[in-house]
């Protein structure tokens, strides 16, 4: 019991730590004037989210987060920032005027109010099935088929096989589109 209590306390501490880290990094990200600094803060957000995914028992998604988001997508972003040489001062003062801030403040307050209302009405608690703890204990007792990846891979290749195959078409279209858009025009005609 003592060890269990300590474990849940450590879990809560880790969860809040990484959650606040993600939040602080996100705020730093939207307020940085330097594009490269903003990108690095966004990388920090993504690492913190990967840690949260591990704590939410989604280890495979956490690995994908680090590999795909921080490893591939953000590198492409940094590569384009470097390619376009966006470090010079004329590009740095980029915040919108008074009305933009006002609109953003209103949207932010509206969304925060929605979160508060959702939390107050206990909608989420009602969504939790009553036998959740029993189900979780049962799942923990029975060894998963295929380890950590099995529960994700089974629906991916059974129920969602069509969507999975269509994703490959989407990626092909994206590759072709990126090459066509990024190619320098050589207008001989």
């Amino acid at each position, binding site marked *: 019991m003592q060890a269990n209590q300590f474990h849940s306390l450590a*879990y*809560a501490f880790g*969860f809040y730590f990484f*959650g606040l880290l*993600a*939040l602080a990094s*996100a*705020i730093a*990200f*939207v307020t940085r004037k330097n594009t490269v600094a*903003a*990108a690095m803060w*966004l990388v920090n957000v*993504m690492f913190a*989210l990967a840690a*949260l*995914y591990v704590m*939410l028992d*989604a280890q495979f*998604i956490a690995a*994908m*987060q680090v590999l*795909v*988001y921080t490893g591939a*997508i953000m590198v*492409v*972003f940094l590569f*384009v920032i470097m390619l*376009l040489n*966006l470090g010079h001062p004329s*590009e740095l003062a*980029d*915040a*919108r005027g008074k009305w933009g*801030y006002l609109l*953003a403040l209103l*949207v*932010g307050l509206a*969304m*925060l109010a929605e*979160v508060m209302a959702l*939390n107050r009405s206990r909608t*989420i*608690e009602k*969504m*939790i099935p009553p036998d959740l703890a029993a189900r979780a204990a049962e799942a923990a007792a029975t060894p998963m088929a295929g380890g950590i990846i099995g*529960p*994700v891979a089974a*629906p*991916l290749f059974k129920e*969602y096989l069509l969507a999975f195959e269509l*994703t490959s078409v*989407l*990626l092909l279209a*994206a590759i072709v*589109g*990126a090459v*066509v*858009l*990024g190619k320098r025009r050589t207008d001989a005609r």
Partner: protein
Amino acid sequence: MLVEALALSALLFTIGVVGVLTRRNAIIIFMCVELMLNAVNLSFVALSKLYGAAGQVFVVFTMAVAAAEAAVGLAIIIAIFRHQRTVNLQNINLLKG
């Protein structure tokens, strides 16, 4: 931890929206969109603890879409930069009339 995760997801999404509304640098706006996608992924993962691993499958699809979006969007930004020599959206007002 479910409520905290969903609240964090909503807050991250809000920060992304605020970033899109207040910034003018096209690349920063684009990164804010990525932040919003990440926030939604966090909700998916948090709720997948309740409703089975299908939520994590959707996160995989979201990542694929985000990768495709990043490739095409950055190509568009490069093409715009080639014409306008800037990524500041205030100077890109061709459709403003």
